[in-house]
């Protein structure tokens, strides 16, 4: 079997030195995918010929001295809810079986302009709704550290592909932790940028006010390189910030002295947090303290309402966003329609999986006349209070530190019968989405052989600052170098 790929910075150096070609890199990714993916099931679609052709073009550009970016010729994977022209975009849903997008997501267009090679499209929970990748119509992905366990989700495929060394980088989407949680469970770096930092145009919407595309990589530096390419204002997304693309890579100084980290008091009080997880995260914070950061306690009292608010807002928006899958214009249409109502009912009954149906039902209820004020409006008020909590906390610290997940990777099937338990496990991640903040998960050790993630949350727009802290931590530790036993 081919070797796991290294960090982007190493690959870049090898490419520039001429000791490897982009074609060879892509070959290696494809070979490793072919060798491992029967067990991992990280990929839904592989772009073999197209990726090899694009790699050859990147090699030709480099030979002419016309490389376009640090990512030129670097293979990566994208989550199957981010559209690419001419490629399927199933969102792991039967209802989009056979659908091929006629246009590029803005992030895809930017990656292509940068010369990056998209090797394939990765597995996810259907329409990104889930925390285990078990809600995929194509079947679950597996955690490279323990194939019996879930890689987390919903970006489980992207994260597993990076953790297994198939590709050095991947794109995921994070609505309530869908990048950070699997990154923690699979021992890689995953980042949710500030809301509006990365264009959502071409990201199949789950919950529009929470969704954000973000990078997955082995190191914070790799994530920075990817974020620099995909970030920046996009006229096609009205919620994208009027900001230029980031230049995060230049901000990775390795220096955290003078920064104050806020240890989240509620993480200690949270009943479901495994002692091993807490110990590793505390040790990681101690390491940052040794590096010159100051640590103090902070509190976000309204986080106890965050899960409730999140599942009201996310389901409400989902019920609306998924109404368009009606079998009329594209995607799956029932073969048993006699009337218009039957066309809708049967197409959607046959096309959506159980979790998606559950959320559409919840969201429809949340928005119904007579309940709107009690649920949706109230949840938006919680959101405002939560933002104020964060504002107050960031008065006294530069970043908040807490575990990404209460526990390490759980067994496949362990939580599928208890959706509420699955929802509650999002307790540490959803607040960042509700408040629009950047968040990053960094591997901080193994607990009983399974990765633990340190989560950093930053002020809105301080994406670079977060990655600087994560990078400084990785410069001082070797946790990200641990490889799963594949």
């Amino acid at each position, binding site marked *: 079997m081919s070797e796991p790929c290294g960090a982007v910075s190493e690959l870049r150096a090898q490419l520039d030195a001429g000791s490897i070609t982009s074609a060879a890199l892509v070959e290696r990714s494809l070979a490793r995918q072919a060798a491992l993916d029967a067990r991992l099931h990280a990929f839904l679609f592989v772009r073999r010929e197209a990726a090899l052709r694009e790699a050859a073009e990147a090699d030709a550009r480099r030979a002419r001295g016309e490389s376009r970016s640090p990512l030129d010729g670097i293979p990566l994977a994208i989550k199957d809810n981010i559209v690419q022209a001419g490629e399927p975009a199933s969102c792991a849903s039967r209802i989009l079986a056979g659908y091929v*997008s*006629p246009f590029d997501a803005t992030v895809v267009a930017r990656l292509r302009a940068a010369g990056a090679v998209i090797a394939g499209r990765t597995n996810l929970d259907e329409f990104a709704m889930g925390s285990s990748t078990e809600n995929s119509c194509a079947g679950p992905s597996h955690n490279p550290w323990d194939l019996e366990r879930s890689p987390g989700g919903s970006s489980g495929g992207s994260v597993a592909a990076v953790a297994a060394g198939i590709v050095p980088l991947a794109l995921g989407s994070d609505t309530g932790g869908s990048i950070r949680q699997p990154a923690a469970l699979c021992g890689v770096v995953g980042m949710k940028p500030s809301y509006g930092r990365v264009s959502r145009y071409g*990201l199949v*919407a789950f919950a529009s006010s929470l969704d954000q595309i973000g990078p997955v990589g082995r190191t914070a530096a790799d994530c920075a390189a990817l974020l620099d390419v995909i970030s920046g204002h996009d006229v096609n997304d009205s919620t994208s910030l009027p900001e230029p693309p980031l230049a995060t890579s230049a901000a990775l100084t390795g220096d955290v002295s003078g920064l104050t980290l806020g240890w989240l008091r509620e993480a200690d009080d949270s009943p479901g947090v495994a002692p091993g997880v807490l110990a590793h995260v505390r040790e990681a914070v101690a390491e940052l303290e040794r590096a010159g950061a100051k640590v103090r306690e902070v509190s976000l009292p309204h986080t106890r309402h965050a899960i409730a608010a999140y599942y009201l807002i996310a389901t*409400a928006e989902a019920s609306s966003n998924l*109404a*368009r899958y009606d079998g009329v214009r594209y995607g799956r249409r029932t073969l048993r329609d006699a009337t218009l109502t039957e066309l809708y009912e049967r197409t959607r009954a046959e096309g959506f999986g159980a979790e998606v149906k559950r959320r559409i039902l919840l969201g429809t209820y949340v928005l119904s006349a007579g309940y709107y004020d009690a649920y949706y409006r109230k949840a938006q008020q919680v959101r405002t209070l939560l933002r104020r909590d964060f504002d107050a906390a960031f008065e006294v610290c530069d970043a908040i530190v807490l575990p990404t997940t209460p526990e390490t990777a759980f067994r496949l099937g362990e939580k599928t019968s208890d959706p509420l338990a699955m929802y509650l496990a999002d307790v540490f991640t959803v607040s960042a989405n509700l408040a629009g903040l950047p968040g990053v998960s960094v591997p901080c050790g193994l607990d009983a052989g399974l990765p633990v993630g340190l989560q950093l949350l930053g002020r809105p727009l301080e994406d670079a600052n977060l990655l600087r802290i994560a990078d400084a931590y990785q410069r001082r530790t070797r946790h990200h170098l641990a490889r799963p036993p594949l």
Partner: protein
Amino acid sequence: MSPVELEMVIGLEVHVQLRTRTKLFSSADVSYGDAPNHHVSAVCLALPGTLPVLNARAVELAVRAALVTHCKVHPCSVFARKHYFYPDLPKAYQISQYEDPLATGGWLEIDAGTGPRRIGITRIHMEEDAGKSLHENGDPETQVNLDRAGVPLVEIVSEPDLRSPEEAGAYLRALRRLLRWVEASDTDMEKGQLRCDANVSLRPRGSTRLGTRTEIKNLNSFRFVEAAIRAEVERQTRLLAKGGAVQQATLGFDAERDRLFVMRIKENADDYRYFPDPDLLPLRLSEQRIEEIRAALPELSDAREERLRREHALSAGDARTLVASRALADWYEVAARAHGQPRTVANWVLRDVLAALRERDAEIEAVALAPEAFATLLRLVDAGRITAKTARSLLPELLFTGGDPEALVRERGLEAVSDPGALEAAVEAALVANPKVVASYTADDAKALNFLMGQVMRATGGKADPARVRELLAGRLAGRR
């Protein structure tokens, strides 16, 4: 029991297509009459991953509509999703405005023949149109045309202030004229650019409570609006007279049979599950931006009427007729400036141009003749090169096909006979040919003079200046005596 006198309570909801090149949230063209589904983008189709982007021009036009109807334009309005499933609604929600509309609290002055009245305007909000579902005869399948899907509209909701079908018609005409005046909309009703829903109820005169109302949907001509309201008022009156109760319902109007039909009975309010669209930021309009849009408005009709009265010395009635539409006022003013004698031009426009338009059931927009060329035609009359009669007979053709009046006159040999020799010869010939009339002529014998004039005019093919002929004849006859 003595019959109670009933009062009509009518409110109109008018959907107006804004005059933009592209749709409200996508760059697809707004166009009419091409092959179906020709103007459809990924956004119009609601393909996965697409997002709406607000058309700034549509906002500007909607604000114009709000300003000319004296509405308060809000510094922040919010787009909301209105959910329902239908094949011609691609996202299964319509982006509209709900709790926070663009503008509220305006009014419009109407005159339905009983003097001017102010009709309140409750609100104006922006929204996108749906597509069209077509049910071909005999075909069990529904065909969907999404060209209209996403076309920018404003919905203008009146207070229930209208008290007769005629007032409803007058309101709609006044609204249409204003929207065209500021070019917010072309309001072409045949193209569905202005559609109206009418809410109709009755109540005892003097009561302040509203009766149960019915809503008549999708009325697309002034005549239908009035006819449908008239029919519905009659129906409700008959119902109430029999001691019955009006049931809340949505009605359609079959214009061919002049009949209403029930589309559906409303048992409870529809639940559209409105919520603010998270794909769009609240629409913020600074005071400065609103003032910029106000400053860019053209001179409004009242001001223009006043100015024409003053500067062109026109009567109030004439000035009002000339500002019936901005296009007419523009055409008149250009012609008046080119000609130099506004009063003369106004007379011709008011009498002859408007008559020619009425004849064709056309509006000034249909006129192909440049106003400058119209001025040229009038100058030909002034110079005696053609008679007024010739000009009048040429006018309909010139108006609708355009062209150079001077060239046309030359080409057709219509120049008035102004050569004194030729005219005198024609007069002489008439006198010689009618000795009896000449012999019997006495002073002020109008009959004989008119007969001889007719002879001369016929001989000159109508191209002689009648005044000159009369002068010559009178002179010759007087000399003879």
